[in-house]
């Protein structure tokens, strides 16, 4: 439980794990993608060099963010795109609303953008009478189910096809019991086509923004960003300020890494470049900070801004695979989410850096080489120092450190512990001991190694 009474990662994960069949299948699907990613990565001899190049380009970007952003802004304006700056999520939402209101639009179609999820744009606009439809299929499914995405690349990976059939039956009038993915996709496509044809405002996210040219690239597998944008009268792009890359030639590095890391594809089906408005079209770019410059100021954590949102760290993370993305109670889940979230609200997300075994697999798959597991460790120290760890834990740790700091108290405690294990196992083997819920306790030997060594050292040396 978190201090405010809401469930923390451990409790939400426990709920998810109750349905073991679902967990097995969730774990299996993501592991399958991880294997596809491995195959794709191993097909590129220079894979590790590519990762290093990407990491260095991003280091350059976050060290010179200011200059690149100004260059990008100037080029956007030259290309006829209106530029807005948003300091916070609230400000971002207000800007989107004011653009739509000026045109008198009450409907918008949106392609995938985790940033607008982070800003809770849909909810904000709904309160002001504006209807937004998410056009990415997975996101659309999450939207009609009133749930946030559970994965940044595969938003409804935690749902079974039968559950999706049920949702479509309820919301799109498909036959009850229909769960064939092809048939369901066809129905969704028809429905979304109608949306694309009639909505005059479209919003997209941004995968890469090229400072040198003032263009931006949006990657989708469904082509939904293009479908929305091409027919729109007003096109809005929302991007976090860290999405900048210096030059067009750097795109090759990132596009080769992104799809392979995300799904094992050589490239995303659509990498759409946007540069200038069509005749009669208005284009807006909103550059959003929302905590990013604060993270930039935290030396230990600034590298987290290199993230290109491929989701590979989630697919490889055994904790994520077993606990489901929604257990992270944050827009960006998994390992990367756990190092981004405490920056936004340390108290609310104090549990997330602890939702890891620090196995380190995430850092190894990361195409931009973010040292995710080291940052998880560092956040733990930070969170404890700021006083956001539970009190009982702090007391336990103080006692432990006292015991372990002195050989005498340590030997005594060890003896007591082993005596309890041997003679009254029930004192430990009960429900109050979380170890014992799913595991047995070790037997406990009659003597410790140090006791044995005392007796035997003479004939040993």
């Amino acid at each position, binding site marked *: 439980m978190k201090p405010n009474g809401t469930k923390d990662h451990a409790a939400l994960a426990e709920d998810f*794990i109750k349905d073991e069949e679902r967990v097995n299948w969730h774990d299996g699907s993501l592991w399958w993608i991880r294997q596809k990613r491995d195959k794709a990565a191993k097909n590129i001899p220079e894979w590790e060099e590519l990762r290093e190049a990407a990491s260095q380009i991003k280091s350059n970007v976050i060290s010179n963010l200011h200059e690149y952003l100004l260059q990008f802004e100037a080029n956007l304006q030259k290309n006829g795109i209106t530029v807005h700056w948003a300091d916070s999520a609230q400000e971002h939402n207000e800007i989107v609303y004011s653009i739509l209101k000026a045109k008198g639009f009450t409907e918008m179609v949106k392609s995938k953008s985790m940033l607008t999820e982070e800003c809770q744009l849909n909810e904000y606009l709904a309160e002001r009478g504006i209807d937004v439809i998410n056009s990415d299929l997975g996101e659309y499914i999450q939207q009609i189910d009133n749930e946030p995405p559970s994965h940044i690349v595969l938003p409804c990976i935690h749902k079974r096809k039968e559950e999706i059939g049920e949702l479509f039956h309820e919301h799109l009038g498909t036959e009850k019991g229909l769960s064939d993915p092809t048939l369901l996709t066809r129905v969704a496509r028809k429905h979304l086509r109608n949306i694309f044809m009639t909505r005059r405002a479209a919003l997209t996210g941004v995968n890469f923004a090229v400072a040198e040219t003032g263009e931006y690239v949006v990657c989708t597998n469904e082509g939904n960003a293009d479908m929305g944008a091409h027919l729109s009268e007003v096109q809005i792009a929302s991007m976090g300020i860290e999405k900048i890359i210096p030059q067009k030639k750097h795109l090759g590095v990132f596009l080769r890494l992104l799809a392979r890391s995300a799904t094992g594809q050589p490239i995303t089906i659509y990498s759409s470049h946007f540069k200038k408005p069509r005749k009669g079209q208005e284009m807006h770019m909103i550059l959003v900070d929302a905590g990013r410059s604060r993270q930039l100021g935290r030396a230990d954590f600034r590298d987290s801004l290199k993230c290109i949102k491929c989701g590979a760290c989630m697919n490889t993370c055994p904790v994520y695979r077993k606990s489901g993305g929604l257990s992270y109670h944050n827009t960006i889940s998994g390992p990367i989410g756990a190092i981004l979230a405490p920056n936004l609200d340390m108290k609310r997300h104090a549990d997330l850096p602890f939702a890891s*075994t620090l196995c380190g697999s995430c850092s190894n798959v990361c195409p931009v080489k973010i040292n995710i597991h080291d940052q998880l460790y560092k956040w733990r*120290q930070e969170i404890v120092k700021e006083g956001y760890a539970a009190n009982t834990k702090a007391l336990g740790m103080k006692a432990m450190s006292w015991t372990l700091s*002195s050989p005498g108290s340590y030997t005594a405690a060890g003896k007591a512990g082993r005596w309890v294990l041997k003679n009254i196992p029930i004192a430990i083997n009960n429900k109050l001991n*979380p170890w014992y819920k799913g*595991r047995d306790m070790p037997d406990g030997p009659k003597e410790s190694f140090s006791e044995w060594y005392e007796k035997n050292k003479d004939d040993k040396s």
Partner: protein
Amino acid sequence: MTVGLFIPCYVNQLYPQAAIATLELLQKLNVDVVYPSKQTCCGQPMANSGFEHLTQKCNDLFIENFASFDYIVAPSASCVLHVKDHLHAPENEQLAVSVRSKVYELVEFLTDILKVEKLNARFPHKVGIHQSCHGLRGLHLAQMSELNAAPFSKPAHLLHMVQDLELVSLERPDECCGFGGTFCIAEEAVSVKMGKDRVNDHIKNGAEYITSPDLSCLMHMEGILHRKRSKVKVVHIAQILNSTR
């Protein structure tokens, strides 16, 4: 060359056989080993829980016990990694750096320093290796499946020298078992589920024993195997390398 034997707290208290095997094995290989009796713990349980600031006394004690040796060897990859990454001495950081640079996990000490090429050991069983994450990704005891790089495995290299031992291959060769230090308590449900899946991979592939350079992972998996009433047993790699049965 004198080696200081570092037996981490939980190994000392719960798995003395592994510590004894480590000592005997090193002695068989003609290493001069000393066990400083005033040692306790590397401080990792506190540090991984976010209380690194409470570990200075453990660090000081560690330095006091081990600074004088040529090498420090321990049968626990996780504790070795902790010392390598996080042991500090604000008063004399130079000393801490030197201690950090000479601490070795047993397997890497055997392969990299002693360069062992032959062992007089026999263990007639089917064995699965649990690549503990700290050993694998922290100390690089084997190649990590995520990287595009040439494969190798120091534990497998040593186990191949053991007579009549058969290594089983796993579907997920380097998946985490879910122990994770205090994670195993704080995230009990995830930890147990991860452990169950991990041991099942070994069971499915016919392992009679699961071995590892890390006893903490083995303790967690032992608890799960025991609860399942499985016949599969866990054994520290030192016990296999020292075995002549």
